[in-house]
């Protein structure tokens, strides 16, 4: 190969340029697509959030002669309850949304861990069968879970009231149970969440989402339990530690690094659990089980207040960002804890 120095340096220069632009060539398809269907819509969303965009503006959109720029009025209306929407107070929905996610995680994680520990008991009969059964809720789509539980909680024909009827029959009562699970507005425990009514629908949804949620936590906890060395327990029992002492001093601390990220994942999932909530209660009764994403959807799908819906989505975005930063920080902080 006879090449002059000039040619070498020239081709080396070309190669360097090629190398410098190559990453962008690989990124090009994704960024072209995202520009059209993500970044542009995000900007468009911010623009129309400052307008009174309604159905009449659909045809000409931003060129519509009826479209008015109204500044931050949409945002102010959302926060102060000035939207032409019944039963909507932003901070009540936000509080409920956080409460909903927190209480879900608070029951799913301990239940998941306890069941994993139970399944991990040495010498328990039928472990394999139980494992195969317990994993079932994970594989069923939440929209199906939501609709099925909605029917289960039906006032007249639902399985839950029929089950309770059968139970009270055992105690000699002949009356059928008719609890209005999804329609009763009066909260059964009024002081539980001072900022809004926790209707029976909330408890019904907690039951249904409990069914859906703990098996995932059991999966994660079972994996983590397997990595705890058995000699730790043997040493502890030689030292005379009781079962509950072993649980609190060995199992719980060693499960923590696996369970905290799982709990944070569960929190984020519950916080934005659109399909399940929409299919089971639709946010009702009287918006008492509405979460931010279902309300955002209602604004655009049914109320057709596009400007307000855009403003609401911008707010939802920032709430989601805060949720991410907080959960991420908790995860990181606990990682540092386990390394220390």
């Amino acid at each position, binding site marked *: 190969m006879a090449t002059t120095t000039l040619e070498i340096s020239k081709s080396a220069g070309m190669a360097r340029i090629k190398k410098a632009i190559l990453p962008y060539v690989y990124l090009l398809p994704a960024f072209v697509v995202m520009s059209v269907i993500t970044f542009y819509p995000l900007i468009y969303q911010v623009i129309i959030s400052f307008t009174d965009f309604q159905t009449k503006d659909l045809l000409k959109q931003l060129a519509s002669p009826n479209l008015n720029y109204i500044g931050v009025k949409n945002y102010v209306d959302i926060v102060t309850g000035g939207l032409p929407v019944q039963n909507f107070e932003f901070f009540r929905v936000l509080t409920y949304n956080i409460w909903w996610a927190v209480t879900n995680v608070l029951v799913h994680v301990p239940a998941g861990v306890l069941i994993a520990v*139970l399944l991990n008991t*040495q*010498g328990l009969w*039928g472990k394999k069968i139980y494992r195969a059964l317990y994993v079932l809720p994970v594989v069923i789509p939440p929209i199906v879970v939501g609709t099925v539980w909605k029917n289960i909680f039906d006032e007249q024909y639902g399985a839950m009231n029929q089950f309770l009827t059968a139970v009270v029959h055992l105690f000699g009562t002949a009356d059928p149970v008719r609890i209005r699970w999804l329609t009763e507005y009066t909260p059964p425990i009024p002081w539980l969440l001072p900022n809004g009514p926790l209707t029976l629908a909330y408890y019904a949804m907690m039951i249904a989402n409990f069914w859906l949620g703990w098996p995932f936590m059991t999966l994660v906890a079972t994996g983590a339990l397997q990595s705890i060395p058995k000699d730790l327990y043997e040493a502890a029992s030689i030292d005379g530690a009781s079962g509950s002492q072993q649980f609190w001093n060995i199992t719980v601390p060693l499960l923590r690094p696996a369970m905290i990220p799982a709990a944070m994942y569960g929190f984020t999932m519950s916080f934005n659990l659109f399909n399940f909530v929409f299919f089971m209660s639709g946010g009702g009764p009287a918006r008492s089980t509405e979460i931010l994403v279902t309300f955002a959807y209602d604004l655009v799908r049914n109320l057709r207040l596009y400007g307000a819906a855009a403003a609401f989505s911008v707010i939802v975005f920032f709430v989601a960002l805060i949720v991410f930063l907080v959960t991420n920080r908790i995860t990181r902080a606990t990682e540092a804890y386990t390394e220390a």
Partner: protein
Amino acid sequence: MTAQSPSKSTNPIIRFLSMNTSGEVAGRDLPLWKQLLLQVLTLFIAAEVLFPIMYIITMSFSSKTTRPSALELFPKEISFVAYQQVLDRPTANPVTFLELLRNSFLLSVGVGLVALLVAVSAAYAFSRFKFRMRQVMMVLVFVPLLMPAIGLSTPLYLLMNSFRIADCGNGVTAISPFMACAQGLGKVTFNLRDSLLGVGVAMIAGALPFAVWNLKGYLDTIPKELEEAAMIDGADANQIFWQIVLPLAVPQLAVTFFLGFIGHWQEFALPWLFLTQPKDYTLAMTLYNMTGQYASSIPWNRFAAMAIIVALPVAIIYIALQKQIVSGLTAGSVKG
């Protein structure tokens, strides 16, 4: 200890189902009373899990079109009437079951494939190249993931709605937003918003960042030695991508596709917002139509059969791919 200690990133489902229970220490058997007590507990939990499943299966096998008057958790009869009726005529809408199935499949498969195709090279770039804008661009891809999918539905609805084809009469066709009929609006013959294509494009907005992130997480775990060896042999970056990385990534491409499929199969919000013509409806939309305010005319056995039909593909994929799916999910979420 290091040789066998399972790292916390290995997936739980597979170990959960196939954990070795034979190597238990002899002489540490449970006392009988404890065994029985724990059996009561585990059976109770099994009953809790099975309650809604048995309820819906029993109902779907019932030929009774009346609503259930008492709780039944075991099928008294095995009748396929409800399934037959659902396959025959799912709802009062003029749409056949096959059309619903086709629409659901078109959306789930189409969105999954396009997202994958567009995502894979970007994932490779993020995983292997060092370049100046890397951090910025990764944040740009990552930020939409934070946004609940509903959060983009308003602008996507409005943008899709502005792509229309109208027949202005006299054989003139106008494509908005680039053209408009000279007089009036003409007759709108196609509205991107009101079509499966438009819904699919909108769904890609959510699917793409997920696919990039999921694939990048996997590519990061592929050892670089192979690529370095190829580079020494004179392969350039393109050859490495096409001939080494892509073949290695095929299993994860499949997992990402199926993970996406599970999500898109249940996608409800965007189709329900965009589509107005029954011929475009999906199975998820039909399931929703069978409950709530529209459900008064639909017997519950038919609803139960539909619920099982909608759940089946997802359940099958999960069970077939349980190992890869859980590790894929946790990789995405923990890295996030």
